[in-house]
C-alpha cells in the first residue's frame, strides 16, 4: 500500500496541476459572456458564410493573405495595416507601393498561421484566407473581427473586394476597382470576338511540365484573352503534370510561362525535346513578368494578366505598347506608383 501511494503521488500531483489550471480556465471563460449592447453599423457576410458585425470604424488591420494585402494598398489603406503575411520581401509591389510594410510584424502563412502574433497587435479587423477556418474560429472566440476570404476566381475576387471595401468604409474605391476590371474585360472581349482562338500551353512555376487544368483560374484567363488552354481536357486535378509526348501532341501555337518560374525562356527555346513544337520553332514563347505582381492569380490587378495575355496572343488588335500604357494607368490610379514601362516584358 505504502509503495503504491508513493508511486502514484507524482502522477496525482501532475494531474492535479493540470486539472487546477483547466479549472481556472473553465471558471474564467464562464464569467465573460455578457454582451454590451452597441448600435450596429453593418454586417458583412464572408466566404465561410459567417456574419461579421462592424460596429466601429476599422483603423488597424492585419492581413494574413498576400492577395488582400495588395487589395488594401489598392483601397488606400496601406497605412492602416499593422501586420501581414510572412515573407513580404518576396513581393516587389510592396517595395514599390508601400515599403513600410516590409518592417511590419509577420503573422505567418497559410500553413502555420500565428494567432498569438495577430492577437498581440490588437487589430480592429483581421483578414485571412478561408482555408484557415479553425484559426478564424479561435480568433473570433478571443473577441476579434475576422473576415475569411476565398478569391479563387473572378467572381469570388469581386466579392472579396466588395467585402473588404465595405468593412473598411472604402466602398467607393472598391466599386471603382471592380468597374475598371469589368471595363477592361469587356474591352478584351470586343477586341478578340472575331479572332481565331490560339492554342496556348501554360507552363507552371516549379516545373515546365506542370500545367493548369480547366479547373484553374489560369484557364479562364487564357479563354478571356482569346486563347484556348491546350490542357483544358484535364479536369480531375488543379495543376497537372504532363509528359513531353503529351505536349508534342498538344502542339500549342503559343507557350506561356507563369511569373517567377524556376526555368527561363532560353531553357524552353533550347530544350532539345521541344524543337518539334510550332511555338518553339516560331519563337512564340512568352513569360509573364514578375517584377510587380503575379498576374496569373485572382488578385486585384489580375486584369493586367488578361491584358498581357491578349497582347501576346493577338498583338494585331492590342499592341504591347497599349498594354504597357494600360498597366501604367492602373498602377498610377490604384497604387499611386509610376511603374517603369520598359521593365514589362514578355
Amino acid at each position, binding site marked *: *500500500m*505504502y*509503495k*503504491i501511494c508513493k*508511486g502514484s503521488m507524482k502522477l496525482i500531483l501532475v494531474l492535479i496541476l493540470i486539472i487546477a489550471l483547466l479549472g481556472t480556465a473553465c471558471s474564467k471563460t464562464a464569467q465573460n459572456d455578457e454582451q454590451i449592447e452597441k448600435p450596429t453599423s453593418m454586417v458583412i457576410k464572408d466566404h465561410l458564410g459567417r456574419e461579421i458585425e462592424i460596429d466601429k470604424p476599422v483603423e488597424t488591420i492585419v492581413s494574413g493573405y498576400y492577395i488582400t494585402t495588395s487589395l488594401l494598398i489598392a483601397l488606400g489603406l496601406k497605412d492602416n495595416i499593422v501586420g501581414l503575411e510572412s515573407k513580404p520581401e518576396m513581393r516587389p509591389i510592396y517595395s514599390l507601393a508601400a515599403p513600410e510594410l516590409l518592417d511590419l510584424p509577420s503573422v505567418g502563412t497559410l500553413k502555420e498561421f500565428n494567432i498569438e502574433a495577430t492577437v498581440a497587435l490588437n487589430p480592429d479587423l483581421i483578414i485571412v484566407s478561408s482555408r484557415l477556418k479553425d484559426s478564424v474560429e479561435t480568433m473570433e472566440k478571443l473577441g476579434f473581427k475576422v473576415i475569411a476570404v476565398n478569391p479563387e476566381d473572378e467572381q469570388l475576387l469581386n466579392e472579396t473586394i466588395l467585402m473588404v471595401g465595405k468593412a473598411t468604409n472604402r466602398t467607393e474605391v472598391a466599386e471603382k476597382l471592380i468597374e475598371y476590371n469589368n471595363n477592361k474585360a469587356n474591352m478584351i472581349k470586343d477586341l478578340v470576338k472575331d479572332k481565331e482562338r490560339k492554342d496556348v500551353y501554360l507552363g507552371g512555376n516549379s516545373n515546365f511540365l506542370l500545367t493548369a487544368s480547366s479547373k484553374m483560374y489560369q484557364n479562364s484567363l487564357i479563354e478571356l484573352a482569346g486563347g484556348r488552354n491546350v490542357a483544358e481536357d484535364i479536369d480531375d486535378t488543379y495543376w497537372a503534370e504532363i509528359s513531353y509526348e503529351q505536349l508534342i501532341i498538344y502542339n500549342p501555337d503559343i507557350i506561356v510561362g507563369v511569373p517567377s518560374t524556376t526555368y527561363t525562356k532560353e531553357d524552353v527555346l533550347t530544350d532539345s525535346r521541344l524543337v518539334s513544337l510550332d511555338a518553339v520553332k516560331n519563337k512564340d514563347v512568352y513569360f509573364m513578368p514578375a517584377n510587380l505582381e503575379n498576374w496569373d492569380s485572382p488578385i486585384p490587378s489580375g486584369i493586367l494578366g488578361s491584358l498581357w495575355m491578349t497582347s501576346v496572343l493577338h498583338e494585331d488588335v492590342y499592341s504591347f505598347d497599349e498594354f504597357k500604357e494600360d498597366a501604367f494607368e492602373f498602377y498610377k490610379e490604384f497604387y499611386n506608383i509610376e511603374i517603369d514601362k520598359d521593365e514589362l516584358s514578355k
Partner: protein
Amino acid sequence: MLRIEDICAGYNGRTVIEDINFVCRPGELTAVLGLNGTGKTTLLNVLCGLLKPKKGKVIVNGHDILKISERERARNISLMPQRHSIIYDTKVIDVVLTGITPHLAFFETPSKTHKEAAEDILRMLKMEQYSEKNFLELSEGQKQLIIFGRTLLQNSEIMLFDEPDSSLDYRNKHMLIDKIKDVLSSDQKIGLVTLHDPNLALCYCDNIIIIWEGTIYAKFPTKDLDVSYINRIFSKLLGNVSILCHKDKYVIAR
C-alpha cells in the same frame, strides 16, 4: 506429489515426446537425462504450461494443473530457465522480486513484505551484499544463483530446472545443485532437473529418468543401484563406459 500421465506433445504437428509417465515425491530431486533434442525441454514446457500437450495429464495433489489458470499453475510449479533473458540494467533484489508475480493480484505490485521475503532469500543464498548491485554485472555463477533465488520466491511445491548448470564452472555447478537439494529437502518440495551430465545426476538426484527418442527409456531410483544395471543403461546412451564406485556413489567414466 506430481504425477505425469500419458503425456504426448510436440510442435507444429510433429510429436516430440509421447507416453511419458512418471511420479515424483516431495523432498526428491529427479533428473531427466537425454541427449540433445530428445525432448527434455519439451517436457518442461508442457509441465510449466507453455506448451499444450496433445494428450495426457499432469496431476498435482489430485488436480490436473493443465486445466487451471496460468497464475494458479505458477503458484504450484516454477521453472528456472536455462538462460536468463534480462537485457536491461536491473537491481539484483528486483530480479529476485519478480518471482513473487504469481502471488500478486492482477493490478497489484510487490509490497514491503514481498520485498522483505526477497531479501530473506538473498540472505539464505549468502548474496545479500549484492542486493543493490546491477544484475548484469555479476558473474555467470552469481547470476544463476539469483535466478534460482527468483524461482525460490515463487514458493511453488514443484520446481523445474532446465539445465541449470549449463553455463557454470565446476565448482558452481556442484554448489548450485547442492543448494537445490538443500531447499528441496528442507521445504519438502518436488524437484525436476534436466541435465546432460549423468554424473551430476548420479551424485545428487534421488531418481533418474532417461529419455530416448521421445519416450522414457528408463527410470530408476539412484539408491542401491546395481552396477551392471547402470552399465547396461548408460552404455546404450553414452557408448562404451565404465562405472566406478566412490564413497557410495557411482561415477561414469569413458
